[in-house]
């Protein structure tokens, strides 16, 4: 059966990339929504519905890359429907998170901060490496490189990489994270995870984990060359999550199932 896919915030950049790839991936686009005060022209050939509820009623899954502000409203709109929710909004607040968890009891919800398959495989391997290579003899450092317009550091993905390493070692990242070394900082502590952020040009995104032991070094690098990679991952998630029981799913869940 062809999956009907809907796009809240259909004028968004990643949303449009998803729409472009939908037909080739075998989806039927059921429609989209746009913000009431949006000044952008809605995409051609996509029916614009009045709200997310109306969109959910005619869709098997909605793919949502809108904004952290909309999370609670969209969760409410899915109540009483059988529409799955693929959510890629960043900066979700604690109340937003609670709303996600509530609606995940009714419909399948797939949340990811980063939908790139490659990056998520790297996160998986980072945790395994950290587990096998103890902090006493192996130092973990993270480098991220992004375009000159990025306003925050380290990148969200670099932090996710640090969290994976910390998790592998049974630590909290907050306790071991060292970002932006400068001056007379003293010798490196064995369990710290150092972050360095480079900014320049139009680099789409590069994150690297470097683990150095007494006589060897292992590193994992992920480089994005086209943001289409996020759209492809979101569509793969949409395909995977439709038909699953209600619950909250992640890229890790999907990859572990595919890795079996």
């Amino acid at each position: 059966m062809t999956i009907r896919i809907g796009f809240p915030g259909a004028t968004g950049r990643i949303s449009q990339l998803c729409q472009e790839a939908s037909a080739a991936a075998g989806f039927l686009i059921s429609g989209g929504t746009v913000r009431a005060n949006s000044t952008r022209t809605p995409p051609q050939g996509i029916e614009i519905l009045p709200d997310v509820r109306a969109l959910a009623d005619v869709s098997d899954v909605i793919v949502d890359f809108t904004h952290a502000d909309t999370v609670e409203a969209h969760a409410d709109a899915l109540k009483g429907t059988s529409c799955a929710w693929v959510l890629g909004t960043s900066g979700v607040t604690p109340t937003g998170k609670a709303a996600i968890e509530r609606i995940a009891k009714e419909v399948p919800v797939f949340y990811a901060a980063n939908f790139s398959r490659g990056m998520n495989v790297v996160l998986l391997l980072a945790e395994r490496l950290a587990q096998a290579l103890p902090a006493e003899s192996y130092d973990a450092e993270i480098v991220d490189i992004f375009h000159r317009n990025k306003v925050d550091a380290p990148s969200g993905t670099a932090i996710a990489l640090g969290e994976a390493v910390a998790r592998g070692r049974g630590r909290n990242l907050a306790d071991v994270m060292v970002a932006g070394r400068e001056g007379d900082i003293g010798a490196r502590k064995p369990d710290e995870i150092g972050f360095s952020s480079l900014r320049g040009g139009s680099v789409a995104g590069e994150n690297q984990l470097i683990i150095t032991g007494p006589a060897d070094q292992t590193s994992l690098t992920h480089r994005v060359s086209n943001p289409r990679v996020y759209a492809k991952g979101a569509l793969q998630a949409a395909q995977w999550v439709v038909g699953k029981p209600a619950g909250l799913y992640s890229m890790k869940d999907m990859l572990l199932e595919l890795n079996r």
Partner: protein
Amino acid sequence: MSERIGVAGVTGQVGRLLAEELEKSSATLTGGTLGRNTQKTPPAGVRIYPSVEELAADSDAVIDFTHASTIFSFGEQVVRGKVAWIIGTSGLTAAHWDVLREAAKTVPVLYASSFAATSVLMPDLVATLARLLPAEEYDTEIIEAHHKYKVDAPSGTATTLGRLICETRGLNFDEMAVLGRKGETGPRKVGSIGFGAIRAGEIVGETKIYFMSDDETIILDRRVFDRRVYAVGAIQAARWAIGKPAGLYSMKDVLGQS
């Protein structure tokens, strides 16, 4: 009782390190055989045996970092000498593996393309990458870099990992391996694995595996700074293998990862 360990090719690069590390360890260095280049002077104080068979007769294990071509004659000698045979030679072909399997019917045989602990994790990481990043979307290429004295290419580590990637993807390695590109190669074949070999200076060993789609690149890179990690790992393997039943073993068995 202290394990008696002999070193085939004790004049070789790793052979010398093995002798040094064995002297430091609680195991006993029985002696060694000369490498192919018999002009090199053996390390001081190390007893030199005329053959592997005679070395084996005095030892519980023989560690062999010599050359693939010696496998054929060593196979029979370790069986007659009844020792554990620890092999770190690269560039093994199907015929070499037959010799290893034959010897493994009588004595413990342990082969590793690398004896460093982190290297042992690599197969698991690489198989996961190969499974989750399929050949239809992700082109895989391997570059390895080694010191200028290395005589074979690509390295055993690189081809072992390439073979694993193909097997994980259900592809035939011998059909998919592109061991050196030159001239009118035509476009890249889906599922193929290209190898690049850099030989320079004193590089101990680096293996870099790329998975590249139209939109993203994933790189797994492993570097060894000091060849001593191989010697330490090989001695650990030898001590583990002594007294084990006949059979073919790997570093995974030594580290309890299998």
